[in-house]
């Protein structure tokens, strides 16, 4: 995979993360939306991981689990503050 491929993929992930952060900030005063945006952001991250590794032809259950577990850690940490 070339440099341009990785750059485009990471730019897409950055856009997902930035959109999630903006949404969380913009709708910060609505508890339900806050949870929805946090959940969608980490789902986007997991989806990106699966898609990216699939294209790289290196997708395995271990990798999917890694993305899922880190998403769970991020959601749990956010829930400590925002009481999802």
């Amino acid at each position, binding site marked *: 995979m070339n440099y341009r491929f990785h750059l485009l993929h990471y730019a897409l992930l950055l856009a997902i993360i930035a959109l*999630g*952060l903006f949404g969380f900030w913009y709708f910060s*005063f609505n508890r339900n939306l806050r949870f929805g945006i946090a959940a969608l952001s980490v789902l986007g991250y997991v989806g990106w991981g699966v898609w990216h590794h699939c294209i790289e032809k290196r997708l395995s259950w*271990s990798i999917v689990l890694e993305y899922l577990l*880190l998403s769970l*850690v991020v959601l*749990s*940490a*956010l829930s400590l503050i925002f009481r999802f």
Partner: protein
Amino acid sequence: MKRVVRYINRHVAPHHETGEKALALRHEALLFYAIFLFLLQFGLHFVSVRFPGILGFASNIAVDDIINDTNKERTTQGLKPLKFDGRLSQAASEKASYMFAKNYWAHTAPDGMTPWFFIQKTKYYYLYAGENLAKDFQTSKDVVEAWMGSKAGHRENILNVNYSDIGVAVTNGVLDGFETTLVVQMFGSEKIVSGMVAAASPKEIEPEPTPVSLEGPTFNIEKKFVSSGVSVAATQPSYTPISNPLIPLVDVVALGKSVSYTFGFFLLGLFLVDSLIIARKGLVRISGHSVAHIMVVILLLATTWLVSPGTIR
């Protein structure tokens, strides 16, 4: 000493003995962090409800500050400041207590009770009335800033030229199983008859107050008013600001933020070390990309830093 260094090295840096992955980043470790955070949330919730004096929601919201900040926003826009009205404050206080008692967080209660009931109960017979709600905020400034930043009618309430009076209640309690501070802000104006504010008996008021939008987050209504000619001086209670900042030994929100920062920076450090070593060694392994993981951890840190846990209605 060597053993300690080796132990730390295996946990924080990728190594061939650990499958080129730091032990602190393996699946088992990530699962442990998630379970730990999950259990910690339950534990904090349990302790904060059972022992609110030790671990609780610490807020420093004062009625006076809310009123002053609200009036600052109005005067900045060239509007007249609102006058404190004890009856509106009483209505706001009763509304807050009702929300705790009935365990709801809305303008209209599940049993259909509207804010206007609480206002009328205090014999404040309004021409216009409105309500802003907030919870889980820690400072008065944050509350007013959230309302002013709202696109859902809170800002319009604060800057409404039809209001002349304000009442605010700040009440602590347990809502939805979580300890919190509720802020109820009520606005209103009474009809002026012959140079004085008049009150009317409930029977004389027709029709019943009807919110512009029942689904809307704030209400701003107009109703017909029939005066009985009673002056406000005879009916208005004295000014008794209600402010009860709760200061537990440990603030549950600050603790949550600290834990979130700790985990965020811990994971960020681990992934940075991981990606640097893997790049330097030029290793290829079956694993997720650390750069992607770094991005999601930055999302956690930025959200913790930028966003207030408070909500408004």
